[in-house]
């Protein structure tokens, strides 16, 4: 037994990602070593052969994500793990997976950038790259865990969402989360919801690789299952063959968008603490959310109430909820381990009267609760 079901263990964030992948039924891992994500590849190299699952170290990250897509098309749930420089190389494959609607999971343990940057230190500098890194309009799902238990849970959720929405899902722990160790009580296996790979049940001659359904997603057949079909990164029709007919191009592109935008309820995941009663709210995700919680406790002792708004699902951005909950606030403080990325989304969703205040840290270290407390004291 690789996943310590029902037990309590001291586990590292990256280890929890690897265990989450096993729990979700990973069948294929392809990757290229890079700090601070390498433990994920190393642990899976140990676990997967024991389960008769396939693991490979490819020649680079472009090859890794390409192999992943091939692996999933051939019927294995597939995941890779990387960090900034590798994530940049994976943008080509991410776009291909979006376009061809192949479910894969890409873990990007965020380190300081740009370029080689701060290999061993934390950042949240890739959240916009996760959204817009590959070219062309495309749907994106990205999740940001804030602790080791969530590394386990959100990896399973990433696999599930990728299957439900037939699209790549990006897990975005920052280096602090990937490398921290915490005591985790693992659930019982029967309490974990794992979405199996959907398979078509129509006769072969009726199969459309991109069938137009009300959910905007149709079950994908695997190579070798008797449904022969064509996959291409060229814009394609329902059967998967290249097309330039206006109506077919528009139908494809709109369906790609709508499969996310029309099902936001299934994707949105936010945590809020005292938001309603506070006129000042801290908007934080990943490791910074932990500091925000600690800051809130310190401020409480000083008889200052502040709210916390935390998106767990970063993309799609929780537009409606941000508008509903934050549009009437005096101040929204957005601490981030970058020079200001998600803050633009908060600004976009709040009226001008809301003061949206940045707090950056870019030296590779965590934003401390005290820094947040100071920033709050300054604005109120």
């Amino acid at each position: 037994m690789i996943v310590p079901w029902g037990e309590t263990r001291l586990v590292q964030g990256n280890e929890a990602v690897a265990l989450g992948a096993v729990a979700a039924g990973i069948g294929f891992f392809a990757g290229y070593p890079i700090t601070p994500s390498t433990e994920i590849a190393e642990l899976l190299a140990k676990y997967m052969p024991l389960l008769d699952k396939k693991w490979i170290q490819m020649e680079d990250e472009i090859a890794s994500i390409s192999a992943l897509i091939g692996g999933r098309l051939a019927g294995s749930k597939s995941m890779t793990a990387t960090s900034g420089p590798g994530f940049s190389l994976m943008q080509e494959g991410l776009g291909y997976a979006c376009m061809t609607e192949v479910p894969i999971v890409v873990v990007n343990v965020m380190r300081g950038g740009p370029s080689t940057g701060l290999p061993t230190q934390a950042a949240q500098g890739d959240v916009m790259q996760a959204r817009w890194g590959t070219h062309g309009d495309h749907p994106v799902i990205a999740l940001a865990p804030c602790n080791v238990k969530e590394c386990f849970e959100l990896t399973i959720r990433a696999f599930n969402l990728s299957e439900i929405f037939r699209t790549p899902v990006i897990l975005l722990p920052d280096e602090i989360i990937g490398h921290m160790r915490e005591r985790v009580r693992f659930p019982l296996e029967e309490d974990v919801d794992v979405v199996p790979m959907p398979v078509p049940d129509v006769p072969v001659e009726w199969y459309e690789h991109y069938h137009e359904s009300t959910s905007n997603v149709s079950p994908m057949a695997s190579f070798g299952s008797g449904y022969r079909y064509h996959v291409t990164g060229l814009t394609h029709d329902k059967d998967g063959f290249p097309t330039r007919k206006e109506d077919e191009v528009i139908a494809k592109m709109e369906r790609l968008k709508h499969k996310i935008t029309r099902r936001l309820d299934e994707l949105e995941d936010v945590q809020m603490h005292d938001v309603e009663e506070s006129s000042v709210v801290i908007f934080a995700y990943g490791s910074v959310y932990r500091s925000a919680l600690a800051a809130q406790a310190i401020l409480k002792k000083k008889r200052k109430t502040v709210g916390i708004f935390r998106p767990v699902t970063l993309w799609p951005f929780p537009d409606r909820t941000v508008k509903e909950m934050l549009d009437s606030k005096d101040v929204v403080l957005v601490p981030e381990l970058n020079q200001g990325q998600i803050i633009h989304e908060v600004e976009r969703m709040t009226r001008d009267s809301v003061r949206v205040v940045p707090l950056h840290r870019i030296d590779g270290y965590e934003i401390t609760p005290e820094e947040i407390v100071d920033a709050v004291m300054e604005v109120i």
Partner: protein
Amino acid sequence: MSPTIPYEYKYLRAKKRFPHVWCPGCGIGIVMGSIIRAVDAMGWDKDDIVMVSGIGCTSRMPVYVDFNTLHTTHGRGLAFGTGVKMANPRLNVMAVMGDGDSLAIGGNHIIHAARRNIDITAIIVNNNNYGMTGGQFSPTTPPGAKTSTTPYGMIEPGFDVCKLMDGAGASFVARGTVYHVTELDNMILKAFRKKGFSVVEALAPCPTNFGRANRLGGPVEMMQLLKDNTINLSQLKAMKPDQTEGKIVRGIFVDRDSISYGDRYAALCENARIGSGG
């Protein structure tokens, strides 16, 4: 009496996907014919075949054949194919690629596919240039040749695809041409039969770009060049060194048995389980 339809047609998406995109006189369709005849000789079920490709004129081939077909990104066909083969080793995986696709942007992937000896057959249509984008030079453009990006002639030396693949560890390496079709059919068949990484380089004309830029004549003249400028291995043996000057050698250069990546991985799983007592 109804006309007899060549058996090759049953492997084509004949009704839906034709006419094809290739120019008159292009060599790529001939390679497709050889692949189909070799597939038929193997007796493979169409459901169990995966044809992957990258980007380029050659890489448009998968759309026309009735297999599981995967048209990927430029140069990455073998990386996608590696994932397919690992996830389902039962599938017969082949990769069709242009010379630019396989040796320039995909050069890293092909040497590692060969080194791993992954059980995939790579078929490289070498037309000495980037056909699809209008005839720029490729890693196999001969010295001195004109292309749209070598208006003063090619100054870089080219790759010898077969030597490269031999050095990288492929189990089977052959070179044929689209003029010598029976020979090419046979090479591809032998490549399919080989366990491990097999490579067939098929020399082919691109009259539209390479031919025109170098005033090599039309499709017929370019075919004649394939006939005149190549010799097979027995001709090579019989000829004196000065007679072989400038000739390209056809033939099977490597045919060795080494354990494929898939088999080594299966053994690793077995050993890991025994080692862990499970």
